[in-house]
């Protein structure tokens, strides 16, 4: 069952995605390929960040925690609509020495990708 994504986590992730807080963003190689395949007309990488940030800024953003990721940070998966298309996203918030947001997935929901 999807639940509301915790506000603290959302706010921290959005702030870094939008460049409003110290920290860095990494995108898994295949997530970037997936995003490009889903939005071939999407001009720039920052539009991926903006799409994720826009959804996660919503108070009603729902998702599910993922516990088996590498690295084992606080990771959520969620499905949202962007430009008329459904996107399955998976994002982690990690804190080694500096906060890092990792975009693990950004693709069309596949069979079984239900929340």
């Amino acid at each position, binding site marked *: 069952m999807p639940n509301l994504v915790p506000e603290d986590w959302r706010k921290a992730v959005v702030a870094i995605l939008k460049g409003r807080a110290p920290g*860095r963003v990494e995108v898994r190689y295949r997530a970037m390929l997936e995003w490009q395949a889903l939005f071939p007309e999407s001009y720039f990488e920052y539009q991926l960040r903006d799409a994720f940030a826009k959804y996660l800024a919503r108070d009603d953003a729902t998702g599910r925690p993922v516990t088996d990721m*590498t690295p084992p940070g606080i990771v959520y998966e969620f499905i949202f609509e962007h430009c008329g298309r459904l996107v399955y996203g998976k994002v982690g918030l990690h804190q080694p020495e500096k906060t890092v947001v990792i975009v693990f997935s950004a693709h069309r929901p596949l069979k079984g990708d239900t929340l």
Partner: protein
Amino acid sequence: MNDDFFTRRESILTDFPVAIPTLDGKGVAETVTVKVPALRDPVDGEIYLTEEALRILDDTKARYMGLLLPRQLRELRQQFSLTQSEVSELLQLGEKTWTRWESGRERQSRSLNLLLKALWDGRIDVAYLRSLRTSNPPISPASYSLLSGKRPAPTNYPMPPAGAMPPVAEVVPFAA
């Protein structure tokens, strides 16, 4: 374990296929491959694109689309000795828009890029843009109807009360 992940990854250069959009933005015109810095986890082979890699991908797209790059925008602004706030005002942009363009956080649209290219190429200058701000105040529908003899389209413009319209000669000072 978390720390292990962030220290064990190795820096590599990897190829990434960049899709260049068509002019109408509805498809892919071509795909070019660029080398970008990345971090590879030796445990599972996963590759992570760094912020530098993401910036290179966006710069590649921008270059192929003919957009001025962030550093060129900064050069352009500095060439005219303008602050970010002044250039924003001159181009009638939102306060932070130019800042985001200059940092690469966002990119200018293709249509606005035409104006910037004209500035960059010296086809127009800042004095010209400034003159547009002062010599071309917006024409209200009421004035337009006096000039053209056509009935104005309904708008939300505040209309002056009946009898308060200025003579045509005052609306068009340079009319013969």
